């Protein structure tokens, strides 16, 4: 029997009378590669923060590996949204990766030799070994995301949370990036939130759609229900109504191809 990595039970979150998350049930199993899709403002980042224990749900229970998220923070690797990062920062890549060792009591100014070696291994794993001495501000969007993923991986987490990892990557490089993620998913459980539907063309193992409520599908395909949740119901005289069926046909084709 596979273990539940993330377990959300009936989770709701209200901020100033506005419901951000509503009665969410989600269970992510060990080894899963889950893509959570949703529109802007649909609560994706909030969901990640709830899983990290940075935000407390108004109702419901969150457990990570069967415990409270704060207890198991060291097990989680996190890639924040691009906006939270200072892109102009005087620091080389190696020093950025080493930040992954920062924790509750990380006193002092020096990292150990072991930590430095681990950081280089993490860089190797994302294929950026030669960039250790580069300034972070000179990296391209895709390279920077890889470095930040290495930072999330350096502490050997069992779960990787990625918040809009491709928002700063051009469409061509996105596929390479998804390919890289699917390689990674053999080693670690991954939860990606994104508004970019093209991620469904990569080798995700399951999909959920989030727009205040969440619909989970353990197969990597988007159902009609999910489309309705994401974009609302469109009747036949709406131009959008003709778009969706074809898109879901497209997606199911991809799905059958993968099988």
């Amino acid at each position, binding site marked *: 029997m596979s273990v539940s990595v993330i377990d959300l039970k009936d989770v709701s979150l209200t901020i100033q009378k506005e419901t951000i998350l509503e009665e969410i049930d989600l269970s992510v199993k060990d080894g899963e590669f889950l893509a959570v899709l949703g529109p802007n403002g649909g609560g994706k980042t909030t969901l990640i923060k709830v899983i990290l224990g940075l935000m407390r749900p108004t109702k419901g229970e969150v457990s990570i590996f069967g415990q409270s998220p704060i207890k198991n923070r060291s097990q989680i690797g996190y890639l924040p949204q691009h906006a939270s990062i200072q892109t102009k920062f005087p*620091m*080389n890549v190696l020093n950025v990766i080493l930040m992954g060792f920062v924790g509750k009591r990380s006193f002092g100014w020096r990292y150990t030799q072991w930590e430095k070696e681990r950081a280089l291994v993490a860089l190797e794993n994302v294929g950026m070994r030669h960039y250790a001495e580069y300034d972070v501000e000179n990296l391209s969007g895709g390279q920077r995301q890889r470095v930040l993923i290495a930072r999330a991986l350096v502490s050997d987490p069992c779960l990787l949370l990625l918040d809009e990892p491709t928002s700063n990557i051009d469409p061509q490089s996105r596929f390479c990036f998804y390919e890289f993620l699917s390689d990674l998913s053999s080693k670690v459980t991954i939860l990606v939130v994104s508004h970019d539907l093209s991620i469904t063309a990569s080798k995700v193992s399951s999909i959920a759609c989030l727009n205040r409520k969440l619909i989970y599908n353990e197969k990597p395909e988007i159902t009609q229900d999910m489309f309705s949740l994401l974009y609302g119901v469109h009747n036949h005289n709406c131009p959008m109504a003709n778009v969706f069926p074809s898109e879901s046909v497209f997606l199911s084709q991809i799905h059958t191809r993968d099988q």
Partner: protein
Amino acid sequence: MIEAFSYGFIQNAFLAAILASIACGLIGTMVVINRMVFLAGGVAHTAYGGVGLAFFLGLPVMPCTIAFTTVASLLMANFTFRQRRQTETIIGMFWAAGMAIGILLMDCTPGYHVNLMSYLFGSILTVSSFDIWVMIGLNIFLLMAILIFYKDFAAMSFDEEFALSRGAPVKFLYFLLMAMIAVSVVMIIQVVGLILVIALLTIPPYLAQLRISSLGQMMMKATLWSLVFCLFGLWLAYRFDLTSGATIIAVATGSFFVVYVLRKFKVIGTSF
């Protein structure tokens, strides 16, 4: 110049310049990196309230100003921590209120106030031996705090969300940083005065921030730049009988433009 060093007040002035430079390098770097320049300006002007309070109560100026400014900066931290991007108004209010309180308290203090201007534009030649000891103590506090929390400060400045997710004490660090800014600002006020503090907090880190691989390097480089400005400025002020604070800032801004132009036309490499 050599014979000048036989005067105690000149010795103190040089010691004060060196001590303030260390504070500039350490805290100026944090201020620039975290884009808190306006906040630091607010703290500097709030300090004037502390000066007024010291005169009003007849207390030693430096310790009293430090206490007042630290309390004010922690209050500001409290207001600005949650909504970092909408805080200009609150900072502006502290900025003006601090000055106003200072002036009002001066008005209420009987007697002749010769020292008023010296806190606006610095009074490095009047730094006492007692002040020097206070400054040494404060520098030790700053250095210890930076060394102990170096990794956390770096992580918080680069990516606060990530630091939070790792369980780093971000809120504590923010308040600590604000207190450190308060302390440094009061120290630097001794050298260049509160109106010119911002120049000394920002120009050295700006010149230091190219071609470096860590925050620590930037701090060291900024300290060196600041030392150059303070010592050279002090010498010029002594030699040509000029106001020391303004001369130091003139040297700093002059160097800034020279380096900027030289970099622009690639006369010198960016590593300079």
